[in-house]
């Protein structure tokens, strides 16, 4: 009865939880810039959530250092379904300039299914909005497929 409404609402209200796995902070400030009045991602319903329990979209930035690996996995587990994982920047995808370091355990794909990758070092805010918007559509599909 409510199924369609719920699935439709899924795309309109994606809440973001942001995990930094050793990023240089470049991607992080760009993500925050997306929420500022200039780019105003809130018009699509995006909102930063304070805890993984509230999140729909988990944004991972940074090259997954060995210290943060365990924490990343634990936090991803704590997000309720349906959830979408988005990687932000080049680091979580390839390791970027950190590749080959003894303390880097990228890519994120090793630990979880990544739905959207936003490439760039750092990605432009427009690209981030585009990526998050795609993630929201995927969220809707995932909700529709859930029983």
């Amino acid at each position: 009865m409510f199924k369609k409404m719920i699935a439709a609402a899924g795309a309109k209200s994606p809440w973001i939880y942001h995990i930094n796995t050793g990023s240089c902070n470049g991607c992080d400030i760009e993500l925050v810039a997306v929420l500022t009045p200039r780019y105003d991602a809130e018009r699509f319903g995006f909102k930063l959530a304070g805890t993984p329990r509230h999140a729909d979209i988990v944004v991972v930035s940074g090259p997954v250092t060995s210290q943060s690996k365990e924490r990343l996995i634990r936090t991803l587990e704590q997000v309720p379904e349906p959830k979408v994982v988005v990687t932000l920047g080049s680091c979580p995808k390839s390791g970027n300039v950190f590749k080959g370091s003894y303390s880097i355990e990228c890519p994120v794909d090793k630990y979880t299914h990544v739905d959207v990758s936003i490439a760039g070092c750092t990605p432009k805010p427009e690209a981030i909005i585009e990526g998050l918007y795609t993630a929201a559509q995927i969220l809707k599909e995932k909700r529709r497929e859930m029983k």
Partner: protein
Amino acid sequence: MSSFFQIIENIVKAMIFPGLLYATAGGLLLAGLDRKIIARMQRRVGPPVLQPTYDFLKLCGKETIVPHVANKPVFLAAPFVGYVSLVVMMLLIPIGGYSAFSGKADLIVILYLLTIPAVAMIVGGSASGSPFAGIGISREMVTMMAYELPLIIVFLSVAKLVGGDSMNFSLQDITAWQEQNGPVIFSLSMIPAAIAMLLIIPAEVGMQPFDVAEAETEICEGPLVEYSGFPLGMFKLGTAVRIFVMTSLFTSLFLGGITSGIHIGWTVCGVYVGDLLVRGLIHFAICAVITLLCMTFIHAITARLKIEHLFKFYWTVVAGLSLISLILVWIGV
């Protein structure tokens, strides 16, 4: 037979107007309006007005994870209790000249009923077993202690103004008095009390700068940290209804009686629907939005306070304002 109709009528009241449906819809609209207005103040487009509705629906579709340290029944029941008690409060507040269950609660009862949703959130958060929630409930409780003092003084001054030398805490009589003598806020001595009340409402509904308890950037939304899915949606719904209840309370305390001159003799089943529409709904809608504007304005231009500053602010500035009103009305200005 008549008692049967009465039961039906009461159920309609409780479910549709001014009960469940009205309170929920109004609350969600107001909450959406709040976000929209802030966005416009910051010169951006902002989310659609229906955004809180989408949020609630989306949360319905999410899983609910109960942490293993949590007390499951209490954890799941708390949001319902909070939300339902707010809806019931809506039934006890007279809307214009009309009140669904007349004379069944006075200001002191309202003051105490207002604590039930807060306690529900505190107990729910406490039951989740998270240390973040522990800090959150502590802050929520200190906030409550902070605003309760000015709130009771505001209520007392209104009651004194309306009741004169006889005792009067009844919301019904306050509304009736305003129909006769114009809004309470028009009397000079009541202006500080109205300002105090406007400063209390943000703390009551957990709006910036008084949202220390649910500070998402420091303590991960405090009591709500472990909530997910439908129960979280109920809490969000409760917060929305709480905004509506508080603005309605402000309207019936301070802004009643503006439309008392208007009279439309259009009846359905013996109820003056035209009057209800103008003096009740439209009047309340406009006043609620005006009240919300005042709160949103504070919200948009301030940053979150620290808990000890919040407590000090309420016990000095806000309590002082309301006390000025009480003393003025007591000596009969």
